[in-house]
């Protein structure tokens, strides 16, 4: 029986004003894994995180973190979690170092240990040069890294990252991904929410797709993709004539009608690897050698579209921490 770092059953939360943010969510996150909550704005991701981090009480259902009920044992839960919320919550007037030390002290680490741990984290997150500058002078990427660093000051065994890379440039996003991967390698359990399918695919071992307050699909990224059962095989031949012959050969192997454009052939198949093996044998018999060949898995974006009927970026704004709207970096 696996042990669950985070569990929830039947979570319901309706905000004042009638918005039903969660409509019966069940979750179970195994220790030492990254669990991705994937969904558009307003799907209920932040609401779920707020319940797990004890800052919001659900209307119905229960949630436990490390086996502790989030309402009954809120205090103990807070002592073992880290939270990097949606809005890079750092104090603008404090320096990078002071921000981390503050969070350390409020985590009851004491001044000396907080100071020591802050220096350590500044180094680890490449923030040394910002250590003595007020946070209002930081770039978006630096703020976000400081925010994640702050959530790690007390060495939590569970980390909640609420849309950690929203609004970041591609390079900062990749930097942060590497940092998150390092944390997971050290055994930290991570619950990550994201609107980015690529991010869930890269970081999460299990992804729950949420829409309108419900989990509509759950599994490994591969399972979700294979549910769609569509792999795209791309071939580039040396000439347009070869491409035509290749397309015919592939079609004969049982594929759908291949798409041709110049020397390129693209075909959608059910079982990519198996089809590729047969395709190469067939081409080899015809003395056809592709210049370039790729098997492209369907993106989670395709998955989301297929599951919900709309793209992941749509949807109303979620009523989150009051007043926090629009403060996103």
């Amino acid at each position, binding site marked *: 029986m696996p042990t669950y770092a985070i569990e929830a059953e039947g979570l319901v939360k309706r905000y004042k004003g009638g918005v039903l943010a969660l409509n019966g969510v069940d979750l179970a996150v195994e220790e030492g894994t990254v669990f991705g909550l994937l969904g558009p704005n307003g799907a209920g991701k932040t609401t779920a995180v707020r319940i797990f981090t004890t800052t919001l009480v659900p209307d119905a259902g229960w949630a*436990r973190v490390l*086996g502790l009920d989030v309402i009954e044992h809120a205090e103990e839960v*807070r002592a073992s979690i880290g939270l990097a919320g949606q809005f890079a919550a750092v104090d603008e007037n404090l320096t990078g170092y002071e921000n981390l030390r503050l969070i350390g002290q409020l985590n009851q680490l004491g001044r000396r240990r907080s100071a020591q741990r802050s220096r350590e984290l500044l180094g680890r997150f490449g923030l040394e040069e910002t250590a003595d500058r007020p946070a209002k002078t930081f770039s978006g990427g630096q703020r976000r890294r400081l925010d994640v660093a702050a959530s790690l000051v007390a060495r939590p065994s569970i980390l909640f990252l609420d849309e950690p890379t929203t609004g970041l440039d591609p390079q900062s996003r990749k930097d942060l991904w590497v940092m998150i991967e390092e944390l997971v390698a050290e055994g930290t359990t991570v619950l990550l929410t994201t609107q980015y399918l690529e991010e869930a695919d890269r970081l999460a071992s299990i992804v729950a797709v949420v829409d309108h307050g419900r989990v509509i699909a759950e599994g490994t990224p591969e399972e979700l993709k294979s549910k769609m059962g569509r792999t795209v095989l791309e071939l580039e031949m040396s000439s347009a004539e070869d491409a035509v012959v290749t397309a015919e050969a592939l079609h004969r192997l049982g594929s759908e009608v291949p798409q041709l454009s110049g020397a390129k052939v693209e075909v959608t198949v059910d079982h990519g690897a198996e089809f590729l093996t047969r395709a190469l044998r067939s081409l080899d018999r015809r003395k056809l050698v592709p210049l370039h060949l790729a098997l492209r898995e369907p993106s989670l974006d395709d998955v989301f579209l297929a599951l919900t009927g709309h793209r992941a970026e749509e949807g109303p704004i979620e009523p989150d921490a009051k007043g926090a709207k629009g403060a996103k970096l």
Partner: protein
Amino acid sequence: MSTVTATIPVPLVGHKEAPAAPSAGRRLRRALGDSLVITERNLIGFLRVPQSLFFLSVQPIMFVLLFRYVFGGAIKIPGVDYTDYLMPGIFVQTAAFGSISTAVGMSEDLQKGLIERFRALPMARSAVLAGRGLADLARAILVIVIMTGVGFAVGFRPHGGLAGFLAGIGILLLFSHSLSWGFSLIGLTAANSETAQVMAFPFIFPLTFASSAFVAVPSLPSWLQAFARNQPVSQVINAVRDLMLGNNLHVPGVLRTGGSTGHAALFAVLWCLVLLVVLAPASVRRYRRSV
């Protein structure tokens, strides 16, 4: 779709046993420690934005100049020099207006997601509020020092002696601190810092102007007198004024609510304690409850 839906809600093997709740003494120590950490954080903020102190002082200085030199000549308070009468009122008004920045600061913390972060930390629920209150108190002392200098420059002479003056400042600070809990509550309730400011004003404005701060209460229309005489800001002003100006300026019905200096001070302290006892738990309750 979801996996474990049939789990029975019992703690699983290998999980933490819920630790026993910490003792009352430990909780109190932690609340104090956390409050001081937050106080330090806010004080650093003040130091990094010294302009805020300037703006907090400009408005009361303008009021001093306005009432001392523009309106002062037209306002007659029997038996006392108007500048002496005015300054204690200005002190209390300064404390009251300063508490608007408590509401704004709290609202900014909320807006930037800091409160959400603090709520998820294993820290005392009262510390964010108490810490801000203490830091704002430190700032209020600085503003009062500045205003005392301004007061002396325009001719204010507190005849109550140093002891009376300091006792007046003491009541002033107690009042300022009691108010800060209420204004934190406003800050936590407002959607953003602009709204917090707008929400704070309707409380502050009638309390400071329909009071004994600038005019003698008997000069007000009779329907307003009952409010002006008994509301907390007037009570605090009367006490501060009595203490700072000394007993020798006794003019019944004007300087006092009646009775001796000790009476006025007692009323003021009682008012402050009532505000504190009502507002502090209310704002901690508001802090605990999100949405």
